[in-house]
């Protein structure tokens, strides 16, 4: 943290508009933002809040159809009025950018080392050999284990995490004074993300550069940033020191945002508090307080624009009623966590059982012989009636493939499945309508889960018609459509809308309604909330929970977000490289003893509580992605590897009691001892993480 009072860069009443379809649309409105050297400033907001525009506007790196007004002071001059050629010398040298998609921003036809060296040659006038040496040194600093080797590689030969570290090396080589990071970890796995976050923290501490970190993940802000700014609909709602804002949020939006994050401590008996409504579009922003339409504390005065007020500690707030909140006369304590109705309790019997499910893909290469990839390796799962099985793992763990096998979208190579004790045919085509009624799926991407050429009503009608065994009249079908819309909390007039007129969360609600068109016993949900904003995510999770209670359905919930899983699931299975490495109930999986992989996953979750600093277990990057043929699939990355046995022998599936199983060579008791002793101990069970990539 920086103790100095000097300010490196300051935006003053910065306003940015875009010209689209012949008119100006406001993206960022009169924002003030200051960053001191050595400080990491978190910029958070939902998608469309203007956070990326503001970040890029700070370095005057804007699209051709954008205009900026206000002032950005950097080094005593205003960046907005500088000539373009002067900016060219500032970009890369004084202010560097780390973009979200590293692969797209690296030149695919140039070696990593040459690309990084080029920046040093351009800005610092180094000779080619000096620049190359420096590039390798930078790669070492961003923790490449073999920097010389990495420098000779092309971008596509590196994993996503390595690409992102290479682009950080490129940004830092000219020793910039300000680093702008635009969601650099959003597309990465949670373990890789944790490594990048740690790296950025260390680099900023060492270089004393300032950093602006754009993210939607409050957990990262809590763990990484010194100060933060909360953006909503292009306006600053609140800003200040991270510890202060998290401990004592004063803006209704901040309060609700923090309350809506799923945390394992909520347990499965509760509902998450949510923020009602959706963020206004730039074409249709309220004239008064932009948050007023969704604010539970909105009163008449909120129809006028609140002033930005400065508080102690450099804190800013834009709300008419913050004084009442600070004084405690207005409490926005989210509605008390409501218990779910009692009939939600899991009952005896299994909805779904799979035995030794297996799927192998042939990876095709033009010049190599065909390699086989075992995506799902003898997976046996049970989903209990009226309960949720959470399936977690990194990308490439086979969790989605397993879900698709069960749903019937892929054909299993081997193994058996049973739905409600009736054998389940391999592939949806072979399943009778009675089975299809009972087994439906919700997809990850809300934007392509609805046919864009069909209205919401038509989509639901078709699902009801196809999935009904009785002949329904069109009046009956329409009545069911209305019922479905109501059950997913959408107004009836949405039946006439087309998907392009809906927000992401609304589309996902329609997709959920479609899955419930008949009377499903099992709904497979493949990352249904990962594409949604935090405030929308919690509402969708609640909806799934409500529907489980109302309709007595079971879920197979696929997610990489361990907090969302803990909130919804009763039972959790952790997958790595196609194998289930651990299963148990939430309590068992989230606490020691656990599989070393689970342990690493849990430690990687950024905790949205700045007072708790989790100790990270860093995993090596999964560089080659090659299949491990013998032994434990996790052994090349395992921090608890005990020796040759891990490389040569498949680990046993050890019983840790009460249905808790761990696939590891280390005996269960030993794991408990190892994991409860310092320094890799996890912090109790509070390991929450807000998430919406």
């Amino acid at each position, binding site marked *: 943290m920086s103790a100095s009072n000097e300010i490196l860069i300051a935006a003053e009443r910065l306003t940015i508009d875009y010209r689209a379809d012949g008119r100006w649309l406001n993206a960022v409105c009169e924002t003030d933002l200051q960053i001191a050297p050595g400080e990491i400033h978190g910029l958070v907001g939902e998608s469309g809040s203007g956070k990326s525009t503001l970040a890029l506007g700070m370095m005057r790196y804007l699209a051709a159809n954008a205009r900026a007004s206000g002032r950005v002071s950097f080094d005593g001059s205003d960046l907005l009025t500088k000539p373009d050629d002067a900016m060219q010398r500032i970009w890369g040298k004084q202010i560097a950018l780390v973009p979200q998609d590293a692969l797209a921003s690296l030149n695919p036809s140039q070696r990593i080392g040459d690309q990084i060296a080029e920046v040093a040659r351009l800005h610092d006038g180094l000779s080619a050999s000096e620049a190359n040496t420096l590039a390798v040194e930078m790669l070492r600093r961003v923790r490449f284990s073999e920097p010389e080797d990495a420098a000779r590689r092309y971008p596509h030969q590196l994993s996503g995490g390595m690409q992102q570290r290479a682009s950080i090396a490129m940004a830092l080589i000219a020793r910039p004074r300000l680093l702008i990071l635009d969601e650099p970890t959003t597309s990465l796995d949670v373990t890789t993300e944790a490594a990048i976050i740690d790296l950025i923290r260390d680099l900023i501490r060492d270089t004393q550069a300032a950093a602006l970190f754009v993210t939607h993940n409050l957990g990262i802000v809590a763990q990484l940033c010194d100060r933060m700014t909360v953006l909503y609909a292009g306006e600053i709602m609140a800003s200040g020191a991270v510890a202060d804002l998290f401990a004592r949020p004063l803006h209704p939006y901040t309060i609700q945002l923090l309350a809506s994050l799923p945390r394992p401590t909520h347990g499965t008996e509760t509902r998450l508090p949510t923020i009602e409504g959706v963020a206004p579009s730039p074409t249709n922003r309220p004239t008064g307080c932009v948050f007023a339409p969704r604010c539970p504390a909105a009163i008449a005065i909120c129809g006028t624009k609140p002033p930005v007020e400065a508080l102690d500690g450099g804190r800013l707030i834009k709300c008419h009623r913050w004084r009442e909140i600070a004084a405690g006369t207005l409490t926005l304590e989210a509605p008390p966590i409501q218990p779910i109705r009692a009939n939600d309790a899991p009952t005896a019997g299994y909805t779904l059982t799979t035995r030794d499910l297996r799927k192998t893909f042939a990876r095709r290469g033009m010049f190599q012989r065909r390699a086989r990839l075992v995506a799902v390796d003898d997976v046996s799962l049970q989903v209990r009636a009226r309960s949720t099985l959470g399936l977690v793992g990194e990308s490439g763990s086979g969790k989605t493939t397993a879900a698709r096998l069960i*749903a*019937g*979208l892929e054909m299993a190579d081997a193994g058996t499945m049973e739905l409600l004790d009736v054998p389940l045919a391999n592939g*949806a*085509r072979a*399943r009778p*309508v009675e089975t*299809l009624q009972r*087994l*439906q*799926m919700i*997809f*990850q*991407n809300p934007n*392509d*889960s*609805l*046919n*864009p*050429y*069909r209205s919401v009503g038509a*989509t639901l009608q*078709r*699902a009801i018609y*196809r*999935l009904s065994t009785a002949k329904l009249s069109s009046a009956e079908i329409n009545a069911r459509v209305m019922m479905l819309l109501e059950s997913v909390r959408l107004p009836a007039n949405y039946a006439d809308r087309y998907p392009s007129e809906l927000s992401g969360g609304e589309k996902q609600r329609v*997709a959920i309604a*479609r899955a419930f068109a008949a009377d499903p016993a099992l709904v497979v949900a493949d990352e249904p909330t990962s594409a949604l904003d935090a405030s929308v995510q919690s509402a969708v999770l609640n909806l799934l929970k409500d529907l489980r209670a109302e309709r007595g359905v079971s879920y197979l919930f696929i997610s990489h977000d361990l907090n969302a899983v803990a909130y919804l699931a009763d039972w959790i299975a952790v997958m790595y490289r196609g194998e289930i490495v651990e299963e148990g109930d939430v309590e068992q999986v989230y606490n020691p003893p656990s599989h070393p992989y689970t342990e690493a996953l849990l430690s990687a979750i950024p905790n949205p509580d700045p007072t708790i600093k989790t100790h990270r277990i860093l995993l090596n990057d999964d560089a080659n992605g090659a299949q491990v043929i013998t032994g434990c699939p996790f052994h090349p990355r395992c921090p608890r590897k005990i020796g040759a046995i891990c490389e040569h022998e498949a680990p046993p599936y050890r019983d840790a009691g009460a249905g808790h199983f761990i696939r590891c060579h280390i005996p269960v008791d030993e794991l408990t001892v190892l994991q409860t002793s310092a320094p890799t101990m996890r912090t109790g069970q509070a390991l929450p993480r807000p998430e919406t990539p």
Partner: protein
Amino acid sequence: MFVLIAIFGSTIAPYRYDALIRGAARLPPSVEYPFGTDRLGRDVYSRILWGARDIVGLPALTTALAVTFGAAIGLYIGYRGGWVDEVVSRIMDSLLAIPALILALVMLGTLGASQTGIVIVIVVLYTPIVARVVRSAVLSLRSTGYIEAAKLRGESTPYILFRELLPGVLPALIVEGALRFSYAIFLTASLGFLGLGVQPPSPDWGRMVNEARDSYAQTPWALWAPAASIALLIIGVNLLSDGLRRTLRYEGTLG
């Protein structure tokens, strides 16, 4: 405009296409004969008006057929994938590997030069091209949630192909169809020029160019008029397909 000429050309033309006007051979353009007359004394303007029916009608028919077959094949192999896709795609690739005009000459040589022959040749030539465009559009839609949801409802393959997938590929299909149309005109005219198109004495713009070539020195208008008509028509159709591309916001590859 060309469509209007194609439909009504024969009725507004002052003369029949084969009417030999006595004593009026090789006349330069005048008020009575706007494009002059050819060496046999036929009114070039009338012949162009008459010929418009074939030069627009034949390609329109062939394009419609090629688009229909191509869409059906492309939808099916794109959705089905696997070995069916491999086999059909390779067959189409091999067809595409042969230069269009040469294949057309060979086929017309065996089929005999006739209107039906031209239709068959162009349909055979263009179906794979359309199918390829549709197939690639399908590939990007195949794994979307709404297609998978349809599978989980137990929808039949034809339903998924024509009700779920077709609307999504329609913009690509329309643009491709317009593009194919202009190429089909060009090919029809080329074949006419080579004498493999519509047989005399029916007026064919391509053959008119060929016939007028010999007497270019005496009757340059008899060559210029049909050549310019072909050029104008193709430019017009291309502009139309560009316009469609813009309105449909389709960013496809130019064929």
